[in-house]
């Protein structure tokens, strides 16, 4: 009896040692190119993910690239040329889905490739609905929402999304993104369409015309932006009375630059940003990329990122760990788009709808803009 136990135990030991040995000696490349958006966002990733990772793996060298805005086109070109130079790429969820569709991003198995939640929940449960694609590992929830000049709205600061169409109460220019996504939804919402019918209406020809007609009522009052930094600059210069942009940019205008700007959270549109690993990497490079991602998307790391930028961690288990801003020392929770006070009325970017209608509605939108 004793002998059997001992044998079994030593056998188990041998197996586990072998496994540990294999893991420790699995060849991993020592250089890794990480692609992100630059600016404050990339800095938050450097502080929260990369610096601790390099501390634990001192012989790894990280190269940064700031090409996330053109990630899909560049990855496609790299793939055609047969020379993929990126290892880990930060993209928005819709791009992650497209990269997966095009076969340019590798599929991930959350249970194997991602760490368990600190509260013991499995990775799949911890990320929940945010796992919108087989290739995409979410990091943060951000939102596209409005900021307004507190000194230009009098005593009645806007609390309703439809303030953007109300040029009488809030005269002045507005900044909207130069693409149909989000704008069409807001227009329909303010044209009396119920929230849960917005996409059904937008799928029809009449619905699209209706949305454009609503946007037409303020067309002369709109400055169309194409870079996320435009709206903060326009707000700071006093060029516009309100404008849409990413909530993290507005946080930095309000709290870091102390500009007279307020947040309008109503009908904010949630979107996700996260990692993908390109296909076509050598085994060593892929092993390194997966090793990094497993570390960088665990509960603590995701919570840490919120110290540097006001985007919500994608794991449910990270939320209770969100603390204070690293430099300003203010509580970050009230600035998160997911904070209950801010998330009373929200949209989630409808990936499937826009994957289908993007080309069609964009053509109509651009033709409408050029008229």
């Amino acid at each position, binding site marked *: 009896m004793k002998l059997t136990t001992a044998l079994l135990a030593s056998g188990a030991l041998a197996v586990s040692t072998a496994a540990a040995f294999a893991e420790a000696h699995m060849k991993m490349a020592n250089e890794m190119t990480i692609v992100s958006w630059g600016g404050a966002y990339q800095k938050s990733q450097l502080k929260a993910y990369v610096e601790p990772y390099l501390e634990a793996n001192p012989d790894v060298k990280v190269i940064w690239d700031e090409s996330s805005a053109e990630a899909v086109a560049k990855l496609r070109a790299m793939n055609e040329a047969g020379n993929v130079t990126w290892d880990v790429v930060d993209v928005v969820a819709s791009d992650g889905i497209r990269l997966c569709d095009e*076969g340019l991003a590798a599929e991930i198995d959350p249970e194997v490739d991602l760490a368990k939640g600190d509260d013991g929940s499995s990775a799949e449960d911890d990320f929940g609905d945010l796992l919108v694609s087989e290739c995409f590992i979410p990091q943060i929830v951000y939102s596209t929402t409005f900021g307004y000049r507190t000194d230009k709205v009098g005593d009645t600061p806007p609390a309703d999304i439809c303030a953007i169409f109300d040029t009488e109460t809030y005269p002045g220019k507005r900044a909207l993104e130069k693409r149909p996504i989000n704008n069409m939804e807001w227009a329909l919402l303010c044209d009396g369409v119920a929230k849960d019918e917005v996409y059904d209406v937008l799928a029809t020809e009449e619905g699209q015309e209706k949305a454009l007609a609503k946007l037409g009522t303020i067309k002369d009052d709109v400055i*169309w932006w194409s870079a996320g930094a435009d709206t903060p600059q326009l707000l700071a*210069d006093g060029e516009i009375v309100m404008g849409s942009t990413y909530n993290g940019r507005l946080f930095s205008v309000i709290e870091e630059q102390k500009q007279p700007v307020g947040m309008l959270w109503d009908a904010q549109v949630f979107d996700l940003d996260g990692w993908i690993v390109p296909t076509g990497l050598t085994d060593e490079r892929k092993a390194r990329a997966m090793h990094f991602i497993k570390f960088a998307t665990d509960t603590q790391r995701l919570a840490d990122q919120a110290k540097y930028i006001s985007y919500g961690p994608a794991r449910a288990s990270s939320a209770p760990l969100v603390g204070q801003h690293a430099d300003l020392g203010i509580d970050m929770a009230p600035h998160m788009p997911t904070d209950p006070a801010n998330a009373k009325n929200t949209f989630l970017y409808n990936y499937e709808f826009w*994957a289908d*209608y*993007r080309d069609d509605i964009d*053509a*109509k939108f651009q*033709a409408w803009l*050029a008229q």
Partner: protein
Amino acid sequence: MSDATDATTASQAPTPDDGLRIADAEARADAGPVLAADGTPLKRSLSRALRMQKMRALMLIAPLLIFVLVTFIAPIADMLFRSVENQIVSETLPETVMALEDWDEHDAEIPGPDTFTALYIDLYLASERKLHTRLGTRLNYEQTGISSLFRKTGRRVKRFATDDYTKQFVALDPEWENPAVWVAMFEQDDLRKALPLTARTWDRWSDFLIEEEGDDPAKEKPEDILFTALYHDLTTGDQSAFTEGRLARADAAVEAFERVDLKAEFLDADKDWASLPVWQTLKIYSPEYTDGYFLNAVDMQKGLDGPEMRPESQQIYFTLLKRTLFMSLMITGSCILLGYPVAWLLANLPARTANLLMILVLLPFWTSLLVRTSAWKVMLQQQGVINDVLVWLGVVDNADRLIMINNQFGTIVAMTHILLPFMILPLYSVMQTIPPTYLRAAKSLGATNWTAFWRVYFPQSVPGIGAGSILVFILAIGYYITPEIVGGTTGTFISNRIAYHISSSLNWGLAAALGSILLAAVLLLYWAYDRIVGIDNVKLGG
């Protein structure tokens, strides 16, 4: 300059070229061939020397030639090719494309069950290789909704009830499950001929196993698609070849098999498969080459009865092309108006002052493009420097400040500023070569200042204007960053749409077609310029 070249040539030793001429003359003078020192006819040995010299010259320019070929000609050729290439459809869905040949896109009915069988086999293999979503994206440019149709169906296609076929064949003879049987079967040519669909499906399936998975087809369990194809071949084709054995038994039994309704399976996966436009799009875009991208680029589309205009609400490219040409001409014009006096001053002031002025011209040239464009934003916006000054002076009321940016005006101002050096520099170098004595001579003969300038000086500076205009115009027509930043909605160029299709919508075919049209427009204008002004009349200097 040319005199000097002639002088040096004359003073050099005779070249092989000269020798050839002398040899030729001598050969004519007396009939016998002149021999070189080694006994070969002089003519041949000289032409060999000449060839060597030409080779050497070619080798000297080879680095540049190869560089130009690789980095300039090849990408342009690739772009031209992309604008018509459409192989993705017939490569991803070869059986469906073949089956659709018998279907007319004018039919009021969607294609029959054979097409659905073909589509099932194609989509199954495509989803194994993860190619179906790529094709979905491609066809979604033409018909909204195909992207999710392919994505959804690709997920479902492996769960279709076609395992009923597998079960029925295996129940008939368990050997059907043995991959070696299949390998042996398709080594026989007569069987391949009798079972065409099954043979093609087997080939594609085994290619997939070998290429993608690194597996041996003789060891992998035969998939449902193979049995589906076999059922199709046995029920439709002529099977008189099978007199005995497994196939003959299957052929005899197959009529009694329970049929799987693949059409119903597809419709269950997504009801859009019953939609006629989806099938029409598939049929219209099934050829390997298409003019669809070019039609899109001129606001047209491929309809059922050939090319037709797009609905008014989607027409944009023609407007943009006209606007791009118009604004490029405006920018070139304002560059001439502003650049000419500056170049004249540069050429006629004393050297010290001219050098200082030259630095002022070149300084912005050396500054980053983005910085210059952003500076214009600060200058021109409603709360910007110019408006502030105007309000302070009382010229403009604070309530209605001028709108000078995010429109055509802003784009023209910023781009004129950015492209000005390209006008001034060629103008300056041409003006420097005009002798001031001509003007003095004209005046001494009684011409007024204006006549002297217009009749004597200006005609001599025209080559500089020509060179500057071509430079500025061609740079302006392809400009992208400045219109994107300061152009708003009315000041954007066609290049902004090209950039959008390259980096955002990934419709590279359309981007290539737009680029090709732009290239053709530039070449056409260049040709017109050559006919009207003459390209020999363009000088960049001396």
